[in-house]
């Protein structure tokens, strides 16, 4: 899931200051904690309150979109409102904000969130942890399911380094566990230390170029494609 954090209310207010009618769009998609209609409504109320203390009037409407990162879903939901509002505030992650700007290009969409990382939610503790950096070259198969790219401060492919003391990492003052010690423990538990001692070559950074994109290649030939077109 994409883990987000709400921006400071004043930062959002500054962005929408030039407008008097705004649309506030929640997102029911993966972003955590969930930012759906009620969060959008609370944001609207706060912005209105802020405007009121500054002696201004603000008209707003709260909606929510199933997934702002899906162009079709987002477009159908937001289209009916575009003529009535001067700007959109999106409660989605950065992906949602970009997508909204693309599909609703009559007006600008502003972000209400900072997108933090791809992470997991520890529901019982109510905390969010980054376990994956979407590096494009997954090592988890040889590391017992513990990611050294997200978990190791140096992103080492072959660890641990000399900065680990009693299983803790020197970065951050020995408060966080060393990912490579965790990897060792996991592999030992499952009697797969053979994986640990194996040398892992340097990462393939080609897959981590930015901006990345993936095209799912067609598996049928051009002639077959032609027939499809003709049928239409």
């Amino acid at each position, binding site marked *: 899931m994409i883990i987000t954090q709400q921006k400071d209310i004043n930062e959002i207010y500054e962005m929408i200051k030039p407008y008097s009618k705004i649309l506030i769009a929640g997102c029911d998609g993966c972003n955590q904690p969930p930012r*759906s209609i*009620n969060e959008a409504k*609370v944001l609207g109320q706060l912005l*209105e309150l802020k405007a009121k203390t500054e002696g*201004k*009037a603000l008209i707003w409407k709260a909606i929510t979109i199933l997934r702002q990162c899906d162009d079709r879903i987002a477009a159908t939901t937001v289209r009916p409102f575009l003529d009535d509002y001067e700007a959109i505030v999106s409660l989605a992650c950065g992906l949602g904000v970009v997508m909204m700007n693309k599909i609703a290009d009559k007006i600008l969409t502003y972000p209400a969130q900072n997108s933090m990382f791809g992470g997991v939610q520890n529901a019982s503790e109510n905390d969010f942890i980054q376990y994956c950096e979407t590096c494009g070259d997954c090592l988890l198969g040889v590391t017992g399911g513990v990611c050294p790219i997200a978990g190791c401060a140096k992103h080492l492919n072959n660890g641990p380094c000399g900065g680990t003391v009693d299983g803790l990492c020197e970065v951050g003052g020995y408060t966080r566990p060393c990912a490579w010690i965790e990897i060792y423990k996991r592999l030992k538990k499952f009697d797969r230390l053979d994986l640990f001692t194996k040398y892992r070559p340097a990462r393939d950074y080609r897959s981590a170029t930015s901006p990345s994109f993936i095209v799912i290649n067609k598996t049928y030939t051009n002639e077959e494609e032609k027939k499809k077109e003709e049928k239409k």
Partner: protein
Amino acid sequence: MTEKLNSVMVIGAGISGIEAALSLGEQGYKVILVEKSPSVGGRMAQLDKTFPTLDCSICILAPKMVEVSRHPNIELLTYSEVQKVSGEAGKFKVKVLKKSRYVNTEKCTGCGDCSEKCPMKKIPNEFEEGIGLRQAIYIPFPQAVPRKATIDAEKCLFLTKGACKLCIDACGADAIDFEMKDKVVEYNVASIIVATGFDLLDPSVLARYHYGEYPNVITAMQYERLLSASGPTEGELIRPSDKKHGHDIAFIGCVGSRNESICPYCSKFCCMYMAKEGVVTREHAPDTNVTIFFNDTRVIGKNQEEFIERSKYEYKLKYFRGIPGDIREDPETRDLIVKHANLDTGEVETTKFDLVVLANAVIPRRGAEKLADILGIDLNELGFFKTKNSIEDLQSTRTGIYVTGSCQSPDDIANSVAKASGAAALAALHAEPLSKEEQIIELPPLKIVNERDKPRIGVFICKCGINIGGYMDIPDILKYTKTLPDVVFSMHNKYSCSSLTQDIIKEKIEEYDLNRVIVAACTPRTHEPLFQRTIREAGLNEYLFNFVSIRELDSWVHMKEREKATDKAKDLIRMGVARTRFLKPEIKIKGDVVPEALIIGGGIAGMTSAMVIAKKGYKVHLVEKDDKLGGQLNLIYKINFDRIDSIEFLEEKKIELNKLKNITTYLNSEIFDVKGSIGDFKIKVKSKIDDKISDLNVGVIIVATGAYEHKPKGWYHYGEDARVMTQLELSVKLKDKELKDDETLVFIHCVGSRQTDQEKGVSYCSLICCGESIRHALYVKENYPKSNIYVLYRDIRVGTDEEQFYWEARENINYIRFNDYPDVDINNGKINVRVNDILTQINLNIQADRVVLSTPLVPYDNKLLSELLKVPRDQNGFFLEAHIKLRPIDFATDGIFLAGTSHGPKGIADSISQGRGAAAHALIPLIAGIVENEPLVSVVNPSLCIACQKCEEVCNFGAIGVNFDNDILVSESNPLLCKGCGDCAAACPAGAITMSHFADNQLTPMISEALKGDFIDERPRIVAFLCNWCSYAGADTCGVSRFQYPTNIRPIRVMCTGRIPKSYVLQAFLEGADGVFIGGCHIGDCHYIEGNYDALQRYNELKEVLEKVGIEPERFHLEWISASEGKRFAKVITDFVGKIKELGPLPKTGDKIIPKKEEKVKEGA
């Protein structure tokens, strides 16, 4: 076989009697509950807080008191006494004397006008333990049930001297009747439960403490009243002599208890309440020093050892071992000088205190002998009711009469509650529940009220004599009410609760075709059910009724501001109308119950539960993981001090169990899957031998998985040398007669118990090991008289009737108390024990032949089971009950109960009574055949749900969550489990959850209307959200006590502070509030377990951003106010209004900007 009677009598309506009555009443038996005093509640109602959680005592008790008075199967006889009992078990005839109150309780409204006029104002109030005063016509305390006046015939001027009758003039309800006579009524009952409680020793028998002579020496119960916010000093800690605050307070334990010539037994709960009162004192006034003098700190239940430790280290109470010899008074300052030993220094010290509190002994109820005589039962040598033996401690000496609570032996609230349900289970065996037909009340068919129908609201405004009418302009309010939308009829009444008015309400519903009714009167907390019943009798659904409180929340708290009080009443009624327009009929939620029970664990608790349920004719599945039933009993030699042979006892129980053909036992089996909820659980049980799976379908589950004696590896060469053994291992040796005479045995206590260091063992006290050790020591000494025994201990903790055996043991067994754990060395085959005796400060070396270790009782690993059943465990691995005091045998999740040592360490007698109690609770749904729940529940709109599971996170009852067995992944609410707090509705980010009866569309109009009022003073305007159980109740207490506060607040009642989403608060500010107030239960006291934590979380988050949008954070305020803190409620509101006044109105830039708002609707994709 002749037919059994339906009725059971319960004598005494303290917590134990109330619990027994409710347990029986819920099972469908007719209960006659007899209480000597004018109100139910007993001792618990007098307490300020309860240990170890510091719950407000009256807050948690009051709902039960009200419930017992309303229950259709319970006939409550207060101010009544049992006179004569004849007949036998199954058909007792009981004569009950109903003493005359001289007040017609049908007419009395509990307004208190009579007390105000009564000239006899200086009578010491029994409820306040003599430090407060009452009148001759009085209501004993604000939360009394029934809230009806009583005339004290011995003090009344008219009844004693023939002149006065002022109360007759004062009473507007015409309720006083001096002609009223005592009445004797005869009842036929199948069985009787005695729960008459205890009295306290008059400490003046110990002349050296000068109680009654020195004003600043008081009893603990008096101190309890001093601490209570609704007590005579309103919670101010002032000493009697000069009304000044006490800063140095001493508590003296064992005043009369454990004293051969006064009370030769331990009163059991004093150590705990001294710690509690000390902690509460330090919380009240952190600059107060608290010193406690004690003999042994004795804890008697779960989490109490930890509490004592916290009282020492966190709250810095000073503990001194040894009871002071005497108290002297400084005649000028009236300070008290106490001489006591300090065992740390070995010196005798003299310390000065402002106040000394005596923990006086618990004694049998005065008149217990007479009652025993009437009932034909025996007393034991201590004067408490005698029981069959030490394990059957609920059975009196007469068949059909059962005893529970402290009348049998002093006990704390949790044990009294568990025992009460156990006694109810036994009493029920003689009776037959009322049939369903007998319990049905004939009601007219419901009028169909469609949501789309135009509301036709009737408003009835109560004058409550002069209690409302005297402080506001009722005709003006009435005129105004008639102008409100959808109000088609409106009138005022002298007393809305009178039966005359009930008839008028019914008539008007008919005449004006009303489909919704509002009564503006006292408080919904006492009177809502009455009016709900009235409109139901007129064919309207109960939930089409709305209560507007204009007495407790208005007239009584603004007595000198007629104009403003009138204005506020108009606002309150307008808010009420705004909500009422959107009220919907709600129907009780019902589900069928499979008439079978599952019991997990075949120890003595589980076996007992199984038998109680089976005897009532229901099928029971008893699952045991071992190859035989009986659990720990298989390992014990003799039980308790009456030395019941464990194996014989167990065999008897097994024979009894095998006779019951409706019990199926699954040995060597474990639960491996649980689905469903109360009424319909689907269970898979797997045999460990052949992996055979049995599918069960049951209505209820009892968890009794037990605990076992810890094997202390790493302590004292245990496991390395066979001469070092645990107590249970010694027990086996005693059984097999393997000891030799002339040996030296060293017993070491608390090996791995009461440890502050987690590595070394558990933090709790196992409660039973001291008794076990004494029993074994005495047994060794009897059978091997030349043995030498040393017992090394920290504190000796034994029960009330075991104290004498401890004294006997001390006569020729060496008891040595230690602070530092002893050392055990084994050299050349010789065991040497070294210990420092704290009494003599000498290091002792003991050559031992055997070392016997007392180790804790630890729970089995129940992680999997707790996940399957979705029930929690505590930090020690024991199962966590719904409420440590009042619901010790229930889980928070309905339909699942617990018993025995899986709940916490306890003896066999307590395990058996818990087993019976759990069975009694489990029988409630089984007998009823259906489960019912109030329709105040959450409803999920699946089309809006985004399956984020936020609701599941906040729900404490396992009532809502995403059902992964469904094709569509959305949240589902189980209306049978939902308790109606509304936390999920506030937490839902998608707006998919609606709370019936407290829905957004019912509450948000109230917020809007609250801010549209005139507010005669103009500003500030404040919206206050109050939780039903604590702060709203606190506001009621404030009203009853007539504490005045400014009129600026407009209260909105919600069930829990967890119901309040951020948007409500923001709406209030946007629509013109100058301040928003939230009042909830103290942390830890929440009626819904943790709803207030979620409120606190939202409050903190919102407060932070409010500041950023330019609203002073002081304008938004949250406060925890308990039901007893009436005065504090007034103070908090006064302070808050004052603060908002200082800040001025909102918005500061002028009122002109009122942005046009469009309706916010969710657009789905």
